[in-house]
């Protein structure tokens, strides 16, 4: 048996993240050629930058994977209203901790990326909406912005370019729903973060204060800097077609070395990630399931076969370990790469309890606006909680599935899907465990302490 070489990380965004000599101070950033791309940007026309981003094919890193260049194209520039840029730093998808690294360790990279993006879309005001729990992150960003302003990388007449853009850090109040862009906008306006109905409230047309607004993820905005550095064309060669650039994967759960790893899109498979990069499972354990893109993505069962046709027409027949880690791989396997939060579960996990945990999260975080998600998420939580406390019934699996089906696709925002997909996939793939529960817990896996 030939031992395969461990795939190597390619760090673009997190290039300096773990360098002990690197700090989040501007002096350090400038030493490493910081803000040179902003200077380059001002030599270009704003539309040119947009073109480069479009050419790069970079897809949004927040979860939906929508091409960022396309998003910018939708911007309503004719309205005459001010344009706003918002950085979505409300990283709250369970299993995701990539943006945090950028904010804490390399905040100036984000600020530079944002200023380039602001120039490209001609936004005079930019916001970083940061989740409440990142209080240290907010402080770091505040400091970094003050530093950047003192060096005129931000604020009035940036670097003598006559382009001005102010940057404000806005702290959330601790709600998952604020990661949804229209919910975020409502929250930024000072209201309850109830997501808006689309149509008509598409942010690119009627966003913040009913003005055209672009909302991008932290990682996406950092990528803008690197796109400018090497050019859109060259950037699009990193990774695979339609899956360009690198991605930061956040691996958590039952692996030896959980953490964040930056790879070119499609450079490795899920198996390589778990066994080679993360050092494999804990001793004596076997792989049971993987949630590939944050808690709202559908769970994949370890002994499943994934077959079908790829977009380019080729057939595939994958085991869980063969799924390529890019945007399309997990999607082809019936799940999604989402925010890049890979949650690994070994045979010590009771799937009903895992389900109960996820359901508790969604019931707690539903904003309460739409009936299905509001009532359904709490109902599902109550069912799984009851099942875990010894009162499971035979019909509960079907009931859970039915409730989830009644939520999916019937809500204003994608939270409905986020709440329904875990339940749907858990029941579809681990129905036996849910039914076992009703029979008196005979097969309950015993949790071994490490």
């Amino acid at each position: 048996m030939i031992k395969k070489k461990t795939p190597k990380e390619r760090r673009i965004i997190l290039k300096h993240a773990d360098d002990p000599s690197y700090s989040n101070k501007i002096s350090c950033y400038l030493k490493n050629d910081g803000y040179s791309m902003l200077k380059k940007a001002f030599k270009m026309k704003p539309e040119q930058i947009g073109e480069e981003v479009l050419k790069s094919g970079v897809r949004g890193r927040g979860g939906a994977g929508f091409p960022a260049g396309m998003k910018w194209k939708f911007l309503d520039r004719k309205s005459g209203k001010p344009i706003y840029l918002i950085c979505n730093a409300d990283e709250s998808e369970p299993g995701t901790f990539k943006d945090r690294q950028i904010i804490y360790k390399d905040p100036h990279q984000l600020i530079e990326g944002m200023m380039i993006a602001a120039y490209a879309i001609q936004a005079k005001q930019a916001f970083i909406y940061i989740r409440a729990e990142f209080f240290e992150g907010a402080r770091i960003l505040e400091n970094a912005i003050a530093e950047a302003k003192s060096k005129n990388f931000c604020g009035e007449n940036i670097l003598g370019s006559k382009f001005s853009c102010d940057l404000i850090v806005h702290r959330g109040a601790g709600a998952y729903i604020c990661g949804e862009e229209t919910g975020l906008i409502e929250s930024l306006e000072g209201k309850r973060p109830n997501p808006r109905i689309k149509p008509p409230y598409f942010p690119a047309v009627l966003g913040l204060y009913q003005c055209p607004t672009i909302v991008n993820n932290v990682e996406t905005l950092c990528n803008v800097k690197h796109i400018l550095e090497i050019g859109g064309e060259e950037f699009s060669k990193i990774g695979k077609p339609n899956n360009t650039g690198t991605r930061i994967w956040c691996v958590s759960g039952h692996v030896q070395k959980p953490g964040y790893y930056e790879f070119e899109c499609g450079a490795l498979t899920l198996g390589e990630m778990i066994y080679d990069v993360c050092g494999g499972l804990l001793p004596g354990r076997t792989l049971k399931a993987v949630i590939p893109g944050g808690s709202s993505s559908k769970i994949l069962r370890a002994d499943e076969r994934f077959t079908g046709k790829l977009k380019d027409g080729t057939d595939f027949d994958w085991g869980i370990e063969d799924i390529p880690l890019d945007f399309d791989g997990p999607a082809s396997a019936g799940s999604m790469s989402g925010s890049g939060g890979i949650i690994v579960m070994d045979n010590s996990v009771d799937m009903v309890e895992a389900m109960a945990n996820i359901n508790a999260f969604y019931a707690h975080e539903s904003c309460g606006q739409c009936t299905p998600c509001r009532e359904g998420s709490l109902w599902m939580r109550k069912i799984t909680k009851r099942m875990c406390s010894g009162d499971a019934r035979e019909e509960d699996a079907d009931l859970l599935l039915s409730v989830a089906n009644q939520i999916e696709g019937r809500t204003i925002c994608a939270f409905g899907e986020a709440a329904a997909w875990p339940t749907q996939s858990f029941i579809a793939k681990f129905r036996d465990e849910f039914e076992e529960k009703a029979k008196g817990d005979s097969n309950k896996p015993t949790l071994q302490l490490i």
Partner: protein
Amino acid sequence: MKNGKSSSVVINLDGQDVEVPAGINLVEAASLHGTEVPHYCYHPKLSVAGNCRMCLVEMGTPMRDRATGEAILDEHGKQKIGWIPKPVIGCGTNVSQGMHVKTSSPMVKDSREGIMEFLLVNHPLDCPICDQAGECRLQEFATDYGRGYSRYVERKNVKPKRTRLGPRVTLDDERCILCSRCIRFCQEVVDDDVLGFVDRGSFSTLTCFPGKELSNNYSLNTVDLCPVGALTSTDFRFKMRVWFLKESSSICTESSAGSNITVSSREGVIHRITPRRNDEVNDSWMSDSGRELYKNVTSEDRLMKAKVDQEECTLSHAIETVKDTVDGKKLGIVGSCHSSLEEQFLLNKLAKITKAKKFLRGHFGEDDGILVSSDRTPNLRGSLVSGFSSRYPTDNLESLSKSLDKNELDVLLVIGEDLLASGIDLNQLNGVTLIFAGTHQNETSKLAKILIPTLTSFEKTGCFINRNFRVQSFKQAIPGPAGLLPDLQILSALIKSLEKDGIHRPDLSSIWKEMGKSSGSPLKGISFSDVPEDGLLIDGSKWSHLEFVEKKALNYTPARKAQKSK
């Protein structure tokens, strides 16, 4: 629309091509063609929230080739329909040419059943003690789309049961389905942003913001808006089952706005007043103060018995005495802007026969910018149209005062007004015989030689003319107190007794026929039965030289902040 042609579009509604006005939403479009799309949070007069998800329908649009823009045809040569895989909300989806809509497909039915189940899982199901029962959307749609049994075995959420939101509104949060209609109403119509949700998810709770209360003069509209029994009128709460109530159409007498109302009564007792939708007058709203007016019907100071010289007598005797008192004397008549159009017409006729001097006062206050106008009488314009007055009244009776000083009057017939509160001094009335006809006691009625009790607008039928010259009819809702007659019959009897050969019938259609005869009347050619439920706009240009106090507020123009901010 711009070219004037495309003001309507053709959509396919459940397999049938129908024409609907362009730009309306699917709930309205379907309702125009007799299809009900159930909904909770949507209200035609408020912004679209799209949160209840009850109005989900299936929608598709004609497919076009993205590159060429050409229509994509199916094998029959018809344009293919690109159905959206997920259901869309009918309230938030506007019609477009060629749009296909399914309102009863399996997917739609399944969605509605799902929503219904969700709405009921944490609902207390306390219909037997709920005021809304019988007019509850939740009950109605549960009948249509409910499962009939519950799959819910968990504990229900517990929320506050009786929160006092304000002086007139009590909230039961467990019944609330979080549709946000009341919140939007306060923000968009009254501009009094006091309501909001706290907590989130299924624990979301409607409440007033700290230190605020729902005390604006339109707070009870939230009770009407509430599709379930969450917001209840503190006044009406636990008083009456709504299915026992008889509903009559009437007009609010609070001001010249003339809000259309529904009077709900049972066995001759009024239990509540609610607004009746009239897009030209009051949308779906009315003031809280207007709703309280029915209490006057049974108030302590109501005049119930005819009196002559402070002695109780029969009404016919009182009328008889009036005739004797008036005959050959110098009579003055103080009319009222609270009288109906027909009453004022007869009063004018009486004045002509007796050659009486006519006086009229107005009642004015602050305009609240919504539905309480500066003119606090329902029928000032009626006094102009009926011919009783040609001048715009002031808020006192100065000309009467002058007449009294010159001893020009022997007898005064006063309709409802309190002379002593209108600039007349007690001494001035010395030697003048007072006849008072009205519903309630006041300082003047106490001085009257002859006292004729009359009926409130709830107890009779007639018309008022509101601030923009809209004739609106009000129907008798309850019978008047025993032994009393409608004002029209009293006036008619008086006219009959004073006019030697006059043939007079006190019915509305005869009066309207007669009103139409007078030259230059804007009522020409209109009969009483021509006045529709939602009123009839007449030409008031004849009086355009008068300085009406309402000025710009001649129409209620709802504040449409809705589209600006959600």
